[in-house]
């Protein structure tokens, strides 16, 4: 049993034309037993920035609280919102601080920077970041998600098209994974705002 697979998760983030999308399943399980179907794994940092946390549920929730604390402090001191790049570096720093007793979370950061350009990053549990301009995935079925994204992704999708692609990629990936699924959410972030939708998928 791997501790990162104890609760189960599936998170994908993708870039579109001047927009980003981030989708996650909503299952909370204790190994094989499903315990909740409305567990939040994607959190809003600010209007243009979301973070998805895949891994041990308690660390997912604690890290969300820690990140909100740090982001509040930043905004109070700097009197401006945190940009995705800065947030990603902060998160990487927080994870590496626990290098020898880590948070069991592998996060995904998705946002739009001040110029309106989409930003994605993904990191491992000790904060090693990866920056891509197409898609990032994290979770118990990451292999499935990589396959689906590689096949379905095309650059410069409009927000509605991005939503469809993200949803199909997520739904198909979690169907072949016992530990993820049981419902999904998708958030599409554009310069005008965020549109969040709940996905209807197989509840098994």
């Amino acid at each position, binding site marked *: 049993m791997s501790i990162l697979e104890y609760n189960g998760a599936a998170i994908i983030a993708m870039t579109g034309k001047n927009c980003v999308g981030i989708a996650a399943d909503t299952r909370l399980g204790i190994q094989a037993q499903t315990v909740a179907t409305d567990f939040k794994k994607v959190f809003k940092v600010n209007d243009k920035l979301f973070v998805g946390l895949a891994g041990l549920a308690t660390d997912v929730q604690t890290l969300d609280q*820690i990140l909100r*604390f740090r982001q509040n402090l930043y905004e*109070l001191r700097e009197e401006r919102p945190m940009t995705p790049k800065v947030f990603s570096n902060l998160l990487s720093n927080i994870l590496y601080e626990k290098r020898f007793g880590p948070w069991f979370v592998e996060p995904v950061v998705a946002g739009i920077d001040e110029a309106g350009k989409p930003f994605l990053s993904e990191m491992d549990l000790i904060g090693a970041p990866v920056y891509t301009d197409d898609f990032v995935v994290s979770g118990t079925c990451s292999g499935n998600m990589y396959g689906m994204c590689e096949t379905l992704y095309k650059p410069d999708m409009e927000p509605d098209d991005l939503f469809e692609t993200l949803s199909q990629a997520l739904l198909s990936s979690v169907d072949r994974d016992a530990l993820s699924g049981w419902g999904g959410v998708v958030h599409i972030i554009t310069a005008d705002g965020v549109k969040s939708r709940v996905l209807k998928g197989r509840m098994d």
Partner: protein
Amino acid sequence: MARRYDSSTTTFSPEGRLHQVEYAIEAINNAGTCVGILAKDGIVLASERQLTSGLLAPAKTSEKTYKLSQHSTCCVAGLTADANILIDQARLRAGRYEYQYQEPIPMEQLVEHVCNYKQAYTQYGGLRPFGVSFLFAGYDQHYGFQLYQTDPSGNYSGWKATVIGSNNQAGKSLLKTEYDPESTGELPSVEVALRLAVKVLNKTMDGTAASSEKMELFVMSREDTEEKLCVHRILTNDEAQKVIDEVEAEGAGAGDS
């Protein structure tokens, strides 16, 4: 006589006074005035901006009003450098409380924390007290909108309306006559409170013409949405000028009778 007992914070004088603390309070009486007024639907904090030199770069941020958390803001009278330390302390305390309890910190607890920090500099270590007084304005679900005043001794009190900084006695005496919620049965609205605050600043700044560059007007209220978040708003120069003009018009009309 006081000379022998005034150079150390950790020594009482024979009359039972802490002279260093009193000298710190004196320092604040030279600083720009701050007025705080509790309204029915919010709180008004009005501050005098003291421009020391025309060569100074235009201010990027306020020197008087600082946001501490989603539901609290303070304004400063005294040494800005000292204030910066305390403001950071307050922000950390509010953030840590909210992290621990997943709930916003009650106003009095936040004020008490800052005051306890100030008090330590009047009792330990051979360090001088902070030369800052604050007006804390905030909202919590237990007691609604609240206004607190603090001073270098670490003492604090809750107020319906108060003034700190230069000429605060003149300001307070004006408030005593003009701020009278008992007669109407309820607190004034934010608009009325804004005008009263400008009137008080006019009195304490007497001699200088009122203008939106010299007065910083801040309002805290709550949104009417489901989340009911607090709104922190420093009035723009135009909005502030409008209030100043309204007060001048009122004054000109009343003066003749």
